[in-house]
């Protein structure tokens, strides 16, 4: 018994010695990588593939899934609610991303120059990012109420301006929900932008000033181009965020989720309702596949547009 294991060990150590250092490094690297890869394959990639398969079935949780081909997709593309939701999702993206980036850049740009209570102001901007989306959604929901409890309408009323329906309007509801979502994400974007600004070597600015460049030219020729990696990251990051918006919408419209009349319903909320209110898992999976494709396409498109031109 004992001699067996010794010879076994000897054999394996001889095999190990035969590898070059480079090969050994590769083996070690893969050994350490194996765990996260297995983990991700198990909890990320496998369910993703499974969702593609489910989208071709009529699974409803209770009965076994039957393959039904593209019926779910046909149903989805023929459903006016889906197109409304599709449109909403892009409205969140197209209004939310540019607006939040411009705002956060402007704030970061000026905050970077503020010395007085710099840390405190920065913390104030960052605070909403730490707040639970659900709590925030509810507070804003009350802000938007009609009088007598709605703060915003109360102010409008005292200024003699007509009451606004906000969440009770099919036109105003979506921007109304978007405002707290942008506000909540602002702190994070400001911090990242400020880190980007600090990373630009001050010698560039000094050289530019010696050459007599104005502030606007410095901003346009130095700051913005050198912030590009930061901007790319934030554009992709916040786009994905707005495409996946859910918490704010759900918490601000729980009585009629995504309402009124689907005016605020994003794709994620539709998926949630299809899956967990109607138990149409196959149909929900088809919607998920569409969301996945949009996220992938938008991210790739942005990376391509904002790639380094060599």
């Amino acid at each position, binding site marked *: 018994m004992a001699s067996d294991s010794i010879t076994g060990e000897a054999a394996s150590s001889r095999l190990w010695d035969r590898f070059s250092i480079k090969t050994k490094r590769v083996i070690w690297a893969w050994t350490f990588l194996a765990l996260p890869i297995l983990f991700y394959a198990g909890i990320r990639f496998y369910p993703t593939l499974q969702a593609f398969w489910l989208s071709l079935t009529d699974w409803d*949780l*209770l*009965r076994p899934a039957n393959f039904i081909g593209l019926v779910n997709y046909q149903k989805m593309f023929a459903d006016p609610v889906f197109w409304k939701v599709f449109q909403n999702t892009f409205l969140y993206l197209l209004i939310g991303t540019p607006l939040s980036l411009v705002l956060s850049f402007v704030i970061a740009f000026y905050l970077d120059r503020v010395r007085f209570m710099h840390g405190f102001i920065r913390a104030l901007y960052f605070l909403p990012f730490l707040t639970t989306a659900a709590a925030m959604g509810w507070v804003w*929901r*009350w802000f938007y*109420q*009609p*009088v*007598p*409890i709605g703060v915003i309408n109360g102010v409008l*009323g005292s200024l003699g301006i*007509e*009451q606004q*329906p906000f*969440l*009770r*309007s*099919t036109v105003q509801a979506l921007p109304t929900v978007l405002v707290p979502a942008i506000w909540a994400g602002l702190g994070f974007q400001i911090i990242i932008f400020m880190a980007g600004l600090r990373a630009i070597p001050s010698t560039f600015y000094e050289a530019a000033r010696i050459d007599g460049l104005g502030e606007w030219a410095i901003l346009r020729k130095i700051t913005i181009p050198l912030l590009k990696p930061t901007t790319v990251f934030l554009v992709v990051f916040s786009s994905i965020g707005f495409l996946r918006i859910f918490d704010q919408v759900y918490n601000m419209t729980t*009585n*009629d989720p995504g*309402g*009124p*009349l689907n005016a605020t319903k994003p794709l994620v909320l539709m998926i949630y309702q299809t899956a*967990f*209110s*109607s*138990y149409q898992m196959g149909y929900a999976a088809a919607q998920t596949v569409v969301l996945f494709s949009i996220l992938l396409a938008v991210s790739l498109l942005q990376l391509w547009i904002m790639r380094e031109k060599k």
Partner: protein
Amino acid sequence: MRNKAKLAGLAAGISFLALGSAQAVEIEYWQYVFDTRVQAMDQLIEKFEAANPDITVKQVTFPYADYQTRVVAAKVAGQGPDVVQLFYGWLDNFVNGELIQPLDPAVFPAAEIEAEFFPIVSAMKRGDAYYGLPTAVRSLALFYNKALFTEAGLDPANPPQNLADFLAAAEATTKRDGGGNITSAGVTLDMAGQDHHWWREVLIRQNGGVPYDEAGDVAYNDAAGAAALKYYTDLQTASKVGQVGFMDEGQAAFRAGLAAMTIDGTFRLGAFADNPFEWGVTELPADANGLRSNYSSYFANAIGSGAQGEELAASQKFLAYITSPEAMEIWLNVVGELPARRDVALTEANLADPVRAPFLKGLEYAHTTKFYDEAGQRQVAIDMVNRVLLEGQSIEDSLAAAATAEQAIIDAATK
């Protein structure tokens, strides 16, 4: 040495305990989280276990929003409950999904059920088999704020009894600011709350229609349905005595003392109990001819499909106990919901109770909507009203769109 002896004693104790639990049957009871319901069930379990020492009942609760998903997921995992609470409107889903089993007619004879329970219990019947029994039932009534009534010069002892008086009372109690905005509503308008039941089972019938035909298909897309919808939306658009979304939710507006009247169910009694003003309850208003209607619903208790043998016998005993007169009394006192047995509910004391009586009277003429997808069908009603109020769609067009959408839900569930 001493430690070893202690350890041995402990081991013996544990094995003894294990032996004890192996002989007893443990069953699981599932319901959703709602403080008073959980408390009432704890009391019932305590009493049941005292009478049946060989059975232990474990109460498992989930948030309401997750409840159905949990039951379904547990079935997929093969770990479902033995006795489970379900809304009567979920029955088809639960039966089709084989989540529950029919009640054994030898233990729960149909004739006895029909003689002793309120007739609405028939919503738990499919074919000849009953699938569950309720402990308590719910109905709707009109809650009114006595302080606001007095302030408006109305008699708080004489709440409105018909729709004309109801509207007059709403007009008298509505308060507006200089800009014409409502600062205190006459009546709450909240289709996401109980108003869709009021529209469906009460207003449509009072206008001479029926919400659904014999086959269970949508039947409200006619003059009666339109008149009912017009009556409802006119409360906001014509007489301006209420506003959808005022104070966010109807019940919140009433609780805050900023709405004179609201239509709500028995289950709200607990929440309204500590309102800082005097309030009363009366039957839902009758129409001009005195016709009254009401909507009644209930959560029933059923036996999970997984319960077999000993557990099935224990589950049947437990189900029989929680639907017994004694359990109903406890439930009435703790939760405030009405007993599902006629003789327990219609006692002289209950009928003389100013709060319970209007709900009990409502039960006698109540209808129970056969829902296929309660959330989906409610959404149809919410959207119908929103199209009229927010998009200015005509009553007839919005009603027709709602009828088509709801029929699609019914078709999808029945085919």
